[in-house]
Every structure is written in structure tokens, then in C-alpha cells.
């Protein structure tokens, strides 16, 4: 029953926010210039972000990934921070494919280490050609496994959790930007945020994110199914994206507006680390034992 953040975690989140808020690296990354983004990653490594999953509280990972999602930081975050930290030296960026559910490796051309995992066996891999991605800040590469290097359990599940947390952060950012825009943008002589139609859409986004959040933290503590957390965070972030575009109008749709970084990121992450179809099937499988319980049986509590 401890889904609230500790004071230390809140402080760490603030530090992270401060570092990430100053960086404006998504646009150059999308345009092929990775230098500023890689500098931010070095700063994060110095702060201990890249090794956080190995130390301390399991919810620390969620705090970090939420912040990265909130600021739309490009780079192989899920892979480096959540999936591979035990195989990296704390300062390197890593990326990985776990076919078939994670068929491509993100940003493999800039990663220090490229891996493939099959049945918990880790292989070094060579970076192959790039394939199309909906998110210009999340470039996908085919990779080919070479030599076996290690064994690693639960890699996929850790990635799913991190992905859910990143979606949550991205959803919160979309909501925050939409709220700010709705307050300052006037139409028909009043701020559009004073219209109930706009207000209630934004309230619905808040509700969806508020509900997804404890699931993600619960999944970090193994109290909740990680598939449920991914689906809930993905749907909430999807709703936030849809609402953001509706509130911003055609402006949100232009390249000049930064909104597009979150819009495309959310869409890409919803398909990444297992689609909704895959996780929904997983949830149904997990529910199955309960399916057998008769209605007369007292519920477990």
C-alpha cells in the first residue's frame, strides 16, 4: 500500500526535470544531429540515472522513465536504463531487439552496444539497415545476432514496464501543454479552456492518466500485471494525444510546433514493447485462473 513517492524520489524527480527541461534535443535528433542528445545522456549517466534500476527502490525506474517521457528525450532509454543496465558500464548507451515482440533495435547506429535476446540468451549483434518509423526520434534498425554473451531473465517485462512509464510521462506532457494552450488561446472572445467541450475533454485525459499511474507504480512493485499497466498507460497517452491535437487545432499538426514530438512518440511507444493486442491476450491469460471461480465463492482480498 505504498504507491506514493518518497520525499527523496520527489527531489530526484525535480533534479531530473531541471536537467531535461533545459535540453532541447529532440529536434536536432530528428534531423540527424545526435550530439546535443548524447551530451544529455552523459549528464544523466553522471547523475546515476542509467544505473538506477540496479540500486534502490523498484519505483525509481518509473520516476526516471516518466521524466524522460515527459521531456521527450530521444535515445534508447528503455533499453539502456531498464533492460540492459547489468550488461553496460553505467556510461554507455545500449539497445536491443527481442524478436518477435521487439523486432527492431532503437537508435542502434548511436548505441555503444547492440544486442539481441532470444529465450533469455543475450547475443552481440550487428546493426543492419534502418526501417521506417512513425517517430523520427525513435529510429528503428534491423539487427543480426552474432555471438552469445550472457543470459538475462525478464528483459521483455522490464522493457514493458519502462515503456508504460514513458507513455505516462508523455501523456502528462501532452496534457500540460494542452492545458497551457487552452488557457492562453482565445476564440469567440474567451479562452478556449473556458468552453465545457474543451474542459471536459481535458478532464477526461486527467482521469485516464490518474488511473493509469497507480497501475504503473503497482507493476513496478509486482502488485499489478505489467500488461495491464502498459495498456492503461498507452490508452491514456493516446487519449492525451488525440485531445492535444483537438485543442491545438491545425497548429499542433505543423512541424514548427513541438507537439509533434510527443504525438509521434506516443504512437510509436503504443506499438513498441508489445502491441495492445499482445498485452490484452496476456491479460486474458492471466485472468484465466480466476475465470474458473464460481460466483458464490468469496472474493480474495
Amino acid at each position: 500500500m505504498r504507491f506514493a513517492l518518497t520525499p527523496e524520489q520527489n527531489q530526484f524527480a525535480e533534479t531530473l526535470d531541471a536537467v531535461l527541461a533545459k535540453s532541447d534535443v529532440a529536434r536536432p535528433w530528428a534531423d540527424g544531429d545526435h550530439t546535443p542528445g548524447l551530451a544529455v545522456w552523459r549528464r544523466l549517466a553522471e547523475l546515476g540515472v542509467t544505473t538506477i534500476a540496479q540500486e534502490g527502490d523498484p519505483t525509481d525506474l518509473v520516476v526516471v522513465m516518466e521524466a524522460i517521457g515527459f521531456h521527450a528525450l530521444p535515445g534508447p532509454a528503455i533499453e539502456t536504463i531498464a533492460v540492459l543496465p547489468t550488461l553496460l558500464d553505467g556510461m554507455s548507451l545500449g539497445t536491443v531487439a527481442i524478436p518477435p515482440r521487439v523486432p527492431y533495435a532503437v537508435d542502434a547506429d548511436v548505441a555503444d552496444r547492440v544486442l539481441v535476446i532470444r529465450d533469455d540468451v543475450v547475443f552481440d549483434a550487428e546493426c543492419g539497415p534502418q526501417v521506417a518509423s512513425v517517430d523520427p526520434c525513435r529510429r528503428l534498425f534491423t539487427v543480426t545476432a552474432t555471438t552469445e554473451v550472457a543470459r538475462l531473465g525478464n528483459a521483455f517485462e522490464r522493457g514493458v514496464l519502462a515503456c508504460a512509464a514513458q507513455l505516462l510521462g508523455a501523456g502528462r506532457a501532452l496534457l500540460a501543454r494542452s492545458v497551457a494552450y487552452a488557457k492562453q488561446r482565445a476564440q469567440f472572445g474567451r479562452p478556449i479552456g473556458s468552453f465545457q467541450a474543451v474542459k471536459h475533454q481535458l478532464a477526461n485525459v486527467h482521469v485516464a492518466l490518474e488511473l493509469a499511474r497507480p497501475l504503473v507504480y503497482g507493476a513496478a512493485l509486482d502488485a499489478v500485471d505489467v500488461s495491464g499497466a502498459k495498456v492503461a498507460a498507452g490508452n491514456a497517452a493516446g487519449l492525451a494525444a488525440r485531445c492535444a491535437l483537438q485543442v491545438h487545432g491545425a497548429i499542433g499538426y505543423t512541424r514548427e510546433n513541438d507537439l509533434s514530438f510527443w504525438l509521434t512518440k506516443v504512437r510509436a511507444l503504443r506499438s513498441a514493447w508489445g502491441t495492445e493486442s499482445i498485452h490484452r491476450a496476456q491479460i486474458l491469460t492471466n485472468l484465466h485462473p480466476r475465470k474458473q471461480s464460481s460466483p458464490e465463492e468469496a472474493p480474495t482480498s
Partner: protein
Amino acid sequence: MSDQFRQQLRGWLAENLTGEFAKLRGVGGPGREHEEFELRLAWDRRLARAGWTCLGWPVEHGGRQASLAEQVIFHEEYAAARAPARVSHIGEELLGPTLIAFGTKEQRDRFLPRIAAVEELWCQGYSEPGAGSDLAAVSTTATLDGDEWVVTGQKVWTSLAHVADWCFVLARTEPGSRRQRGLSYLLVPMNQPGVEVRPIRQLTGTSEFNEVFFDQARTPAGMVVGDDGWRVAMGTLAFERGVATFGQQVGFRRELDALVGLARRNGAMADPVIEYRLAQARIGLEVMRAHAIRTLSRDNPGFEASVAKLVWARWHRDLGELAMDVVGAAGMTVEDGLDEWQRLFLFSRADTIYGGSDEIQRNIIAERVLGLPKEPRP
């Protein structure tokens, strides 16, 4: 520690929900509030004698200062045992906490022990005809006549008014005042000539709610709680739900389990869309539980209540509609318990209205949590 609490409670319920009380299992609550009142009152008093009422209250007021975790356990186990809906809950969950927060020592000493002992039952006098969600539209007036308040006006949607001994009434005590200003929170005895209760018949044929007419009803001058009636009334609303949510969720889960069972028996589950909706409902339960736990963990739950209200009301309404689709798939017969599902369908539809409509909750979230501008006043 809390395991021990759970075991003790579970044992007590198993031992006591027997004999004449056995038939109370599942009785009361939405659509069944009219059933077995006398026996439920006796049951509540048995609970009181065993010290299972007002768990979280300070010991000096008749409680046992139980922890939040224990209160959650109480509601979960109580619901799991299918113990009947309480008839003394309005005093215990709404008025009691209000008096603890805003009442005088005299008021607390006078009322709290009798609530804890289930000697006096309470009802709530907020809503007025035509006001609906607009709680500040109060026309009921009260004026001080010597050492008594004289109350005149009409309240509506008042559960249990026909059996309550007392009513807490939001009344306008400053003539000519408007909206939230000039209101007082009065405690009014129900058994007097100036109070008349008329049941409101629902479309199910039962009467869950009443109209209450005050025509020069009287109460002593000291029966006013706090200075600012509006603030006190809002305080009462904030006490609504909270830990009781966990008991509600157990009830929801039982409804869903029963519906899943029916869908298997009557073949409705063969439709993948029905199966998907049932699975979504199960996930919804997990979401509500995780959210409720998180809310409890917070020092200041703030506007979480609006989020929770929107979600459970939507979930329950959807379950009611899903129930009709599951029932309908095999035709409707008495053996398949149409009554139960019909009640669920009809009652859950009101969930998005009472206790603050969906629209009001969304306004609260948009304006107070997100800080969006208010609508222009006409």
C-alpha cells in the same frame, strides 16, 4: 497485526451472520433499501455491541481509533461476507466525522455515542426540488424564535428519512442572502409535527428516496454546527466514500463474478465482444483498487474523489448495460435472476447522476485541478 484483525472480524461475521440474521445476506443497498429494515437495525445494533461500528473514531467518542488499513479490511470483509447494507451509515460516515471536525463538545457528547451504539439514525437534508446538482440553491429557511430555530422548506432525494430520528439540514438563516452565503448547518429532530416524509416511487416500483417537508419544524438554538453552513456541508461531502470504497469494490467484484458465471452458463460468453467487455470490466476493478490505495496513501486526497466518482459510476453503469446484454443473449427468465440484473441495470444508471453528476465532476477536475478558467456567468 492486521492479519489478526482480519481473522477476528471474519470469525465474528461467520458466527453472527447466522440464525435469523442469515437471511440478511445481500440485503439492502441500491434497489433493496426497503427490505427488512427492522432486522437490519437489530443487526447494526449487534455490530455496535461487538464494537464494529465507528471503527476509525477516537475512543472517547465510542470508536476504537482503528488504522486506515484496518478500516479497509473491515469494509472488504464485511462486503465479502455479504453482510447487509447498514441503516446507520449516514450518522456513522457523514454526520459523525462532521461533528468531530466542526461540532462543539456538547454536540459531540450528545450525538456521537448514540450513533456508535445505533440508538439514533440520521438522514441528510441537502438537495432541494429543482436544484439538482446545484447544492447552493437552498430555499429552505430557518429563523431563530427565542431559543429555537424554526425551519420551513422542502428537501428531496433523502434516503432513510422515514426511519431517521434526526436530519442534518442545510438552511438559509440570513434572509436575502444568495447562494453559498448565509447558510447554516442545523440538526433537526424528525419526530415532530412540523416534519412530513413522503416516499418517491422509483421506476423499479420501490422507494429508495423521500421528500421531506419542513413546516415550522423546530430545533434548539444550540443545534447549529459551525459558523459557515456551506463550509460544514462541503466538509460532510468530503467524508463520503473514502475507505467505504473498498467495500463497494468487493460488491462490484461479486456482481461481475456472478455475471461472468451467467455468461458462461447461458452461452453469452461465446460472443468475443461480450468476453472482451467482461475482461475490460475486470481490469477496471483492478484500476479502481489501485487508485483507491494510492488515494489512501496521500496525506491530502484533494480532488481524487472526483476521479474516483467518475470512474466507479461509469464502470457500474457499463456493468449494468453489459448485464442486460448478457441476460438478453439467452432470453430472460426468472430462474436466471432477471430481478437481480434488472435492478443492477436500472440502479446503476443513476450512478452517473447522484453524488455529483459526471458533468459536475469534470468541471471540478478542469477548474480546480487543471486550473482552467471558469465559464462566463450569464
